[in-house]
């Protein structure tokens, strides 16, 4: 328990919050790296996901990508990029590696969001004389928005978490507290860093959950539950089990249990 006391007094010392390896500058740079990586991933993931979803093609490709991104270890890709002489141990390496991993949830969720829009709704919209473009912008995208938002939330959280690891390839993140602390055997600093990372991740999750609830239809109660409990469909979409809180909102377009429950993970 000495270690816990040490960590708390580390956090209590104002000098540890500023300057080299200070908590505040590291937090800022951690957030910056996360946002840049997700922005990069969102440009690619949204464009490809929406295009494929609009064309209703490439389902196998999307599933393969989702599965591959789960099997390839993040640590490995970080080390691989860092071993590349032209990149080396820099913040750019960290951002690129994080972006590669953030593409998968964004792409798979926007794709799934697009292809699960009710066909009859789309037909009704075209029947009313809306052009393909109008149907896409006015009907499909708004209906796919909850899933797209869920994908962005997962990507942001996952990237924030992975950025912790990225400190060993040159990303200035809160992971520095853990890495530097380990090499200098300052375990109070290591533990203090872990506490900061965990607390910020949880706060970030709640904030993103709130933002996600704003763009998601449903009762207030159901919304709030979604804020608290991670939306499950983003974790394993689109390879099968897409049941999110089954029964909570039967009319919810995101409840894909109809064709999800009997399928298995990788096909």
């Amino acid at each position, binding site marked *: 328990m000495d270690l816990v006391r040490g960590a708390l007094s580390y956090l209590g010392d104002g000098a540890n919050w500023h300057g080299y390896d200070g908590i505040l500058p590291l937090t800022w740079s951690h957030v910056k790296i996360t946002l840049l990586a997700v922005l990069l991933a969102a440009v690619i993931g949204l464009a490809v996901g929406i295009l494929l979803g609009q064309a209703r093609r490439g389902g196998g490709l999307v599933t393969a990508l989702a599965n591959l991104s*789960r099997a*390839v270890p993040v640590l490995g890709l970080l080390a*691989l990029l860092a071993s590349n002489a032209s990149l080396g141990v820099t913040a750019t390496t960290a951002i690129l590696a994080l972006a590669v991993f953030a593409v998968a949830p964004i792409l798979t969720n926007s794709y799934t969001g697009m292809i699960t829009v009710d066909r009859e709704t789309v037909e009704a919209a075209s029947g009313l004389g809306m052009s393909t473009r109008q149907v896409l912008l006015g009907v499909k995208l708004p209906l796919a928005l909850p899933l797209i938002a869920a994908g962005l939330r997962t990507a942001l959280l996952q990237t924030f978490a992975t950025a912790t690891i990225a400190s060993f390839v040159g990303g200035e993140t809160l992971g520095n507290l853990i890495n530097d602390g380990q090499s200098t055997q300052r375990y109070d600093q290591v533990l203090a860093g*872990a*506490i900061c990372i*965990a607390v910020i991740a949880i706060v970030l999750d709640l904030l993103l959950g709130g933002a996600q609830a704003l763009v998601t239809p449903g009762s207030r109660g159901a919304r709030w539950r979604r804020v608290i409990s991670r939306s499950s469909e983003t974790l394993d979409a689109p390879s099968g*089990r897409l049941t999110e809180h089954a029964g909570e909102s039967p009319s919810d377009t995101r409840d894909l249990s109809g064709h999800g429950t009997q399928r298995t993970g990788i096909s």
Partner: protein
Amino acid sequence: MLLAAGPSCYSQSVNSWFCWQYVHDYSSDIQRAFVQHVELAALILGISIVISLPLALLALRTRFLRSTILSLLGFIYTIPSLALFVLLQPVFGVTHATPVVVALVGYAQLLLVRNVLVGLEEVPAEVLEAARGTGYGAVRLLLRIRIPIALPAILAGIRLTTVSTISLLSVGGLIQQGGLGQLILNGQQRDIRAQVVTGIIIIVALALVADLVLLLAQRLATPWTRMGT
């Protein structure tokens, strides 16, 4: 020797991305890392599966328990792995792999419990009533009716958990407890590209093979799911 051997493909001057000479020279290191990785993954999966079933049954009791348990598991899932490993070190010690095992068992619960729940909820109420009517007790009902019907969902959850555990385990390398993760990190630190790539290939292959084996087991255990397709 008449022909002077050139520098090996993993030496600093060549540093190939992949190199059989490296695999050959370091086979005992690779093997050790591999065995540790597999052992830890198997241990984590074993413990996770044993815990997840009672947890799911508990969650099934009331709405309140269900949302509490799922929220709690989601909360654990939100904590980044490296931070969770370090947070568990004061409790479970710094010199062995227990913090990594405990953390990954915690992550696995969200994936497993959610799938077990989906599976158990799929059991039709009429089937349960019919079984009770013919004199099935609670335990027999669970073992003979509910779990077999829920099996496809449960096995899908186990597959998902297996792949993510094998991959996530490598992060343990950062606290010197990670099997193949440590191999990768060590390769990066010593600037031996072949070592990094070999580590990644083995992890991905391990995840794919484990997934395939479980898929086969799933097909064999639940032949009825393929009827009519």
